[in-house]
Structure formats: C-alpha cells, structure tokens
C-alpha cells in the first residue's frame, strides 16, 4: 500500500464512522434516554474541539492550554449575534440564525487567534504552553466584565458597565440568560463534517506538510525556506476558528451560560481527549472525545465515585500505553494480528518506513 492510498483509506474510514454514528443516533433518537439525548450536541462540540486542538498539539506540535478560551469567545459572540438578529431584526428563522451565529463565533475566535498567535508563537516549548494558559485565563476574566444589549437595531457593548439601554443579552459574570436554544444535532453533525474536511485536507496538503516539517525539526524546516511562524499561525488560527464555531453551537444549546464555564479545566479536558485519542490522530480524537464525554454519564452507577474512577482510568491509560513493559505487550498483540499477511506486505512496507509515536495522520 502506498502512502496516498493509506491516507485515502484513513480519511474514508474517519468520515464513514462519523456518518454511520450520525445515522445510528438519529434513527435511535426516539429510544434514547433523556440524558443521552441531551449529550448529543455537546459531544459534537467536544469532537470539534478535540480535532481542532489536535491540529495545534499533534500536527503543529505546540502545547496549547487555552483552547477553551476560543470556545468561550465563540460561544458568547454567537449568543450575542443570535440575540441581536432575533431582537433587532426579528429574524425568526432558527437555522439561518444558527448559521450566522456560528460564523460570527468562528470569526471572533479567529481574529483573537491571530492577535494571540502573534506573541504566543514567538515562544517555544513550556513557555508557549504557559502563555496560552495565561491567555485562556485572561479571556475568562475579561468575559466576566463584558455586557451587551440590543436597543432597537443597535448592538450596545459595555465593559465593566452593567447599565446598558434596551434588552440585556450578556450580563457580565452572570453570563448570558434566556438564550434561544436553537442548536440542533444536525448542525453539530455538519460542523463535524466541515471540521474533518478542513483538518484532513489541511494535513494532506503542501501547507500541512510544511506545518509537520516545522514540528519535526524547526531548524531543518527553517533552513529549507519554510516560514515557521506563518505555518504555525495557519494551524493555530484554523484551530481557533473551529473552536469558536463549536463554542457558538455549544452556547446556543443551553438557556443560560456563564463565563466561568470555560475554565482552565475545560482546556485540560480537551487536551486529555487529544492525548488519549493519540496525538496527531484525527480519528482517535473523534472517538476519545465521544467516549470520554459519555464516560461520566456511563459511570453514573458509581455515583459519588465516578470522577474518582475517571481519574484512575486516566492514569491507568497513560501508564499502560506509555511504559516500556506494557508497550512491548501491546506490540506483541498487534504483531499477532499482523503476522498473517506479513509475508505479502514486507516488501511494500520496506520503502515507506513507519513513523513512530502514532503521529501518522
């Protein structure tokens, strides 16, 4: 199998699984429990968050600890724009409003992605990580001080100033209240498809290869004329836009939303999805985001102990997949499945050379 065919198969499998899951979920929708039904849209949002963070962490190789900040920006700008359209322009069409809100969320998050990316991407390693963490906290803190209202057709924004004219949309630390719940599962599904299309195409393009080159060896990439900052920026801003759109969908799924919802913990949660799914592996991110979002619900019978079990599972997973002894066992198990057709493919694989560390997209 050559590399191109491998990618094609990988991409088709990824899309196939997502489409199959959607068809299954929508046909079983009637027989689902209420709590599971309520999780469908958040799962879509977390999948998009995980896939987009994977673009930064796995493909561009920069640890970002502030991804929830972009989600927060997207959520609140989406809510404000949706409320503005409804109250200012009497736009009753919910689908149109949702699309506009998601576009606005993506746009705002993208603009901030550029503004934050310029200083952040000059740094390296752990320092870069701590600065993204700092930006995430700044966004949460600043969102606590933002007020917005609609007066007639005009949108009024206030900073540290709660007394605004007209109908209040955003109320500082109390967040958004009485949001129209217009998010749908279908929209979430389409957002996942858009995300996968954008991310997988980006990875398999000339740009994506340049991004991965800067990840694998910055100095070598620079010396063959790749503009490192530019390509890291492309990955960072794309991820920010996608996170903003996921945020808008997430925000419009609840009737109230406070800025405190998008804490540092949420960024970490998304990072956990990415790492457990396999760094750089898009399909892995999709699966782990789905499973881990549902896991606390599935562990409900442990009631008080469920977060404890979650923590233990997390540690156990990392120990099992990363210690040399358990790795050898895993490789043996894999080898048993592979051995059967090894003699046929041994010649073909000799040329390509497998990458290590599961970075193969």
């Amino acid at each position, binding site marked *: 199998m050559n590399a191109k065919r491998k990618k094609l198969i990988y991409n088709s499998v990824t899309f196939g699984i997502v489409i199959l899951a959607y068809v299954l979920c929508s046909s079983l929708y009637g027989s689902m429990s209420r709590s599971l039904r309520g999780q469908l849209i958040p799962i879509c949002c977390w999948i998009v968050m995980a896939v987009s963070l994977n673009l930064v962490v796995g493909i561009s190789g920069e640890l970002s600890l502030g991804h929830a900040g972009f989600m927060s920006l997207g959520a609140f700008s989406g809510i404000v724009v949706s409320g503005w359209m409804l109250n200012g322009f009497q736009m009753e069409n919910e689908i149109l409003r949702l699309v506009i809100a998601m576009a606005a969320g993506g746009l705002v998050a993208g603009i901030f992605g550029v503004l934050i990316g310029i200083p952040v991407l000059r740094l390296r390693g752990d320092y870069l990580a701590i600065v993204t963490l700092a930006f995430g906290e700044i966004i949460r803190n600043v969102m606590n001080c933002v007020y917005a209202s609609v007066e007639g057709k005009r949108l009024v924004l206030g900073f540290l100033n709660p007394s605004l004219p007209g109908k209040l949309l955003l109320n500082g630390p109390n967040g958004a209240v009485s949001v129209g719940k217009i998010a749908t599962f279908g929209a979430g599904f389409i957002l996942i498809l858009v995300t996968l299309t954008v991310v997988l195409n980006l990875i398999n393009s000339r740009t994506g290869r340049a991004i991965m080159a800067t990840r694998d060896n910055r*100095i070598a990439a620079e010396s063959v004329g790749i503009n490192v900052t530019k390509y890291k920026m492309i990955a960072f801003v794309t991820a920010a836009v996608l996170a903003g759109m996921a945020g808008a969908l997430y925000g419009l799924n609840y009737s109230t939303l406070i800025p405190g919802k998008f804490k540092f913990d949420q960024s970490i949660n998304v990072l956990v999805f990415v790492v457990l799914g396999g760094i750089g592996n898009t399909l892995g991110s999709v699966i782990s985001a789905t499973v881990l979002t549902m896991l606390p619900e599935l562990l409900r019978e442990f009631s008080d102990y469920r977060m404890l079990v979650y923590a233990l599972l997390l*540690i156990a997973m*990392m*120990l099992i997949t990363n*210690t040399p002894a358990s790795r050898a066992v895993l490789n043996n198990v894999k080898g048993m499945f592979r051995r059967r057709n090894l003699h046929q493919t041994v010649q073909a694989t000799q040329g390509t050379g497998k990458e290590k560390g599961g970075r193969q997209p």
Partner: protein
Amino acid sequence: MIFLSNLVNGISLGSIYAVIALGYTMVYGIAKMLNFAHGDVIMVGAYVAFCAMQYWGLPPAAALLIAMAVCTVLGITIESLAYRPLRQAASLAVLITAIGMSYLLQNLALLIWGANPKSFPSSMIVLPTLSLFGGGLTISGVTLVAILANLLIMLVLTTFINRTKMGKAMRCVSEDRGAAELMGINVNRTISATFAIGSALAAIAGVLLCSAYPVLMPTTGSMPGIKAFTAAVFGGIGSIPGAMIGGILLGVIEILGKAYISTELGDAIVFAVLIIVLLFRPTGLLGRQVREKV
C-alpha cells in the same frame, strides 16, 4: 499609607506563592516535568493540618509537622507510582498523568472531607498584629509569618542545594541526567528527594494560604497552584531565586492591580504582565538562555 499596606499584603500573598512556586520549580528543574498535582498537595496539607487541630486537638506546631509528614509521604508515593514508570515517556504523557493525579486528589478529598467549605482555624498563627506609625499601618500576624517563613525557607533551601551532597546531586541531575547517572548518582532517589522537599513545602504553603484566606475546599489548591506555576515561569522556571522573585512580584502585582485598577480584572492583570515579561525575556526573569544545537 494605604499604598504601603497594600504593598505589605502583596508581599505576604507573594511569599505564599513563592513557597508554592519553589515546589514547581524544583520538580521542573530536576525531573523536567510540570507537576500539575502540586496545587492539590497544598490542599491535602491544609486539610490534614485542619483535622489535626480541629478533631484531634493538637497544637499548631504539631499540626504543621503532621501535615508536612503526610504531604512528604504523599509526594514520594505519587512520584514512585505514577511518574517514575513514565521517566522515558513523552513529556505530554507525563503531563496528562499529572492532571489525572490532580483530579484523583481533588475527588479523594471530596469523598473524605465533603464539598462544604471548612473554615480554617485562626489559632494557627500565634503572632499578634503589628501596628506601625501610630496605627496607620497594621500588619497581621499571618502576613508577618508568611514573609518570615518565606525568607527562612529560601535560606535553608539555598544552603541545602549549594552545600550538601544531596543538593549537589540535584544540581547534577538537573544539568544532565545521563551524565549524572554515569557518575554514580542515584537519579531515582534524587528525584524522590526533590518531590519530598517540594511536597513538604506545599504543606507549609497550604497552612499559610488557609491562615490568610480561611476557606478550605477540595478545589482550594488549584487556582493558587496555577498562579504559583505562573510565578515560577515568571521568574524563570528551574531557578530557585527566580521562583521567589516571581512569586513576590506576582503577589504584589495582583494586590496592587486589584486595589488600583480593577477588582474584577485582578487575575487578567497578573497574566497580562506574565505575557509581557515573557515576550521580552522568553525564559523568564532569571531563566538561563539555552542555545539550540543543530
């Protein structure tokens, strides 16, 4: 005079941050990992001291010693069970394990002590309030103890690192782990010792923190933990004097920012200053610039 009292409060808060940051910076310098569970060790230390005083009726000094002992054992256990098997693994895997450990400690605390906030006894600090300039400037006992404790810890720790054999081993491991191993230094034991010291400091920090801000919850440690980590980066992570300077500056900036700019934006100001510093000095105030080798 108000400025002076704010400044003293800032230095006091900063001293607490500095003690926490020392734990982060030592572990980072020697084991090259971000120990996200450090903030939760602080919380455990505070809870143990609380129990020792409230339920067992022990004197404050004994409570502090018990808290330090429990945290030391906890730190060594965490290191040997969760982090040691991952010594050769990618740094991200260790980071996620540390995050898992942080969740584990928080949820264990939730099960043991419940979600209701406990109010930390004020009898921990026996020093009276100091009144200067005819009552114009009052410095509470907690403030004084925090500042003094910080100075004392700095002094002891610097002596330990520079004068003892174990301190020398720590410096070696931090410089080059492989070479240190070849020279016959027991790397695992050195890293264990680092965790022990860091966790004992975390217990002291927990008691100081809860004496100054007497609300004790399972999540008490997480925000100060993040801030102290920021302080460690601010001063140059891996550097012990850097952690102290970073911690104190961070505390002062936070209190002054809250007093003179905006109460709501206090945290944002702290993080904004961090970003600005890192833009001009990408390895922190006292961090070493490491040249990249091709």
